[in-house]
């Protein structure tokens, strides 16, 4: 029978199937970070259980880490304890850890792909919703809770109920200046933040095929913001070219065998999805959010919408509440919104290509006096490569701050935060109330829009400069 990509990967991982019970799935790669793992390790300890496959497990420090002075102890005692606990757990249970300052440290979803650990057809889990990022390689990758983290540590499996499947097809070609971030923000605005609930989304079509791996990761990353359990893109030559030569990618004859298998990982002709959505890439333009959930977005050319004009009462109430929090008046052109802070980074847009794109816009220009711009590489490797290309010099010369790797201002858990009332243009993935710091206001944007906004001081695209 014709199967979708997601179904093929699922079927290839069934350890046990029994009537009336969830499928028991094998997990190929388990990523661990300091926030959602402490109780899981503690659970193992209480039950006297080992980690079944430390060799399929890898840990990093990302959420709590400061992006300045990383060699000093973390000032916040709660953050410090979480990081120190991870270090102890990793050493007690024999799990490889990349601590702050390590050459391979970085955001969990940046380091997996970068090391070549994320490969097509694998099952990948992490106690973090943005695990969907890894689906860009044609892996089935999803976020799990702390009890499930413990379950995977102990058994390398998870009992799971089957997902539904959804196809998001982006036809045609993107216009210049329009990026993967604009695609995914437009998708979420179209289907809503619950539109993907219970589904694994497969992104397909000409515009998706044309994207680099970095861009595909940006799209899959935000699948969760559309409510989906996971996002996937079928592997192709772009995927293989990215993987070849990475530290953990197969080599020699193994590489050939792997590629032969990976080429079978596509949705069969005639396979049925539970839901299908189609977008025309040529109609997309730079997209920004105006509200407090990622579905509340509009093209940069538009104005802040009027809640009164919204037909759906729930949507209207949500928009009114969002505008009050964001301190925005209906009808204000989005280009007139001025920001205090620009953040380039996160597991959505903190990879080398994102930094290159932002640097290209900033090169030879200056960050507006009213704006603080933070550029935070997603990993130490990204930082190293950016520095090798001189991007740090470009950013610094323009007046931006160049930081160490971590989640940084994506969430208010480390020192990089918005002050109450401050407004940011951010390349991250969540614009929830208080997400970047209590009382902070977030506009989600692409790296290109972030850089142009930093120069102008108001939401802008490079074409406006």
């Amino acid at each position, binding site marked *: 029978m014709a199967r979708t990509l997601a179904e093929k990967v699922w079927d290839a991982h069934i350890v046990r199937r029994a009537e009336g019970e969830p499928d028991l799935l094998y997990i190929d790669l388990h990523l661990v970070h300091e926030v959602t793992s*402490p*109780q899981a390790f503690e659970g193992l300890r*209480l039950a006297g*259980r080992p980690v079944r496959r430390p*060799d399929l*497990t890898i840990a990093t420090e990302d959420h709590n880490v400061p992006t300045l002075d990383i060699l000093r102890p973390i000032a916040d005692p709660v953050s410090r304890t979480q990081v120190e606990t991870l270090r102890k757990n990793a050493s007690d249970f024999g799990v490889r850890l990349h601590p702050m300052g390590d050459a391979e440290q970085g955001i969990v979803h940046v380091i997996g792909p970068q090391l070549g*650990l994320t*490969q097509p057809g694998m099952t990948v889990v992490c106690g973090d919703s943005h695990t969907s990022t890894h689906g860009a390689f044609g892996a089935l990758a999803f976020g799990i809770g702390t009890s499930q983290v413990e379950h995977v540590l102990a058994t390398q499996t998870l009992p799971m109920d089957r997902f539904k499947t959804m196809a998001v097809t982006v036809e045609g070609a993107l216009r210049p200046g329009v990026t993967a971030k604009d695609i995914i923000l437009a998708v979420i605005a179209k289907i809503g933040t619950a539109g993907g609930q219970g589904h694994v989304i497969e992104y397909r079509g000409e515009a998706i095929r044309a994207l680099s791996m970095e861009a595909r990761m940006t799209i899959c990353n935000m699948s969760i913001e559309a409510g989906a359990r996971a996002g996937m893109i079928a592997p192709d030559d772009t995927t293989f070219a990215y993987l070849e030569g990475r530290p953990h990618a197969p080599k020699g004859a*193994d590489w050939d065998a792997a590629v032969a298998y990976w080429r079978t990982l596509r949705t069969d002709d005639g396979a049925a999805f539970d839901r299908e959505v189609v977008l025309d890439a040529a109609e997309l333009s730079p997209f920004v959010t105006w509200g407090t959930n990622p579905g509340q977005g509009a093209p940069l050319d538009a104005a802040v919408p009027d809640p009164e004009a919204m037909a759906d009462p729930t949507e209207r109430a949500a928009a009114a509440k969002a505008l009050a929090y964001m301190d925005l008046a209906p009808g204000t052109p989005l280009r007139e919104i001025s920001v205090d802070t620009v953040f380039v980074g996160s597991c959505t847009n903190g990879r080398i290509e994102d930094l290159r794109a932002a640097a290209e816009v900033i090169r030879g220009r200056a960050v507006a006096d009213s704006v603080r711009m933070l550029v935070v590489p997603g990993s130490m490797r990204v930082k190293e490569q950016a520095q090798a290309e001189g991007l740090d010099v470009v950013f610094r010369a323009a007046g931006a701050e160049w930081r160490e790797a971590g989640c940084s201002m994506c969430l208010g858990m480390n020192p990089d935060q918005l002050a109450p009332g401050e407004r940011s243009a951010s390349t991250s993935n969540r614009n929830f109330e208080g997400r970047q710091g209590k009382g902070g206001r977030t506009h989600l944007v692409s790296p290109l829009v972030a850089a142009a906004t930093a120069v102008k001081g108001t939401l802008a695209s490079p074409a406006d400069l």
Partner: protein
Amino acid sequence: MEKFTVHTGTAVPLRASNVDTDQIIPAVYLKRVSRTGFEDGLFAAWRAEPDFVLNRPEHAGASVLVAGPDFGTGSSREHAVWALQNYGFRAVLSSRFGDIFRGNSLKGGLLTVVLPQETIERLWALVEADPATPVTVDLERRRVRAGEGDAVDVPFELDDYTRWRLLEGLDDIGLTLRHTDAIAEFERHRSPWLPTTV
């Protein structure tokens, strides 16, 4: 997970309805990195008051909580179950529980028993009259007994699968570990080129 077969202990009468998980354990206690030690956060706001039932010496060492309707509504935090268990509770009796809390509790080995409100009232009366009254939660026979000559002796419902899992002391991990052979067999056939982190 500890097996639950027949448990006898003294009880705490908690005459309050709609005790949500924020009341059971406030968010500020969630930052801890262990799964133990949450007992100090249990009902933290209320325990600041000396009169709160849990603070009364006659209820020291109690292991059965007899609560009002809609116990454990709200936030899905697993910490609520941990806090009750860490404090020493093995069972909670109520006429109605929040869904997620109940799921978490039965996964984690805290037996939540649904009884008619009228039975709850009788248990409250018995325990308030004599705090030393032993209350027995018998999972084998699915009955709750309490008081002189079993003044209260009532059946309760619990599905066979969950009952079996609790009697055997099996959490999800324990259950999956019964299929270790299948896991090992699966591992024997994984492609040799799949990556390891070492």
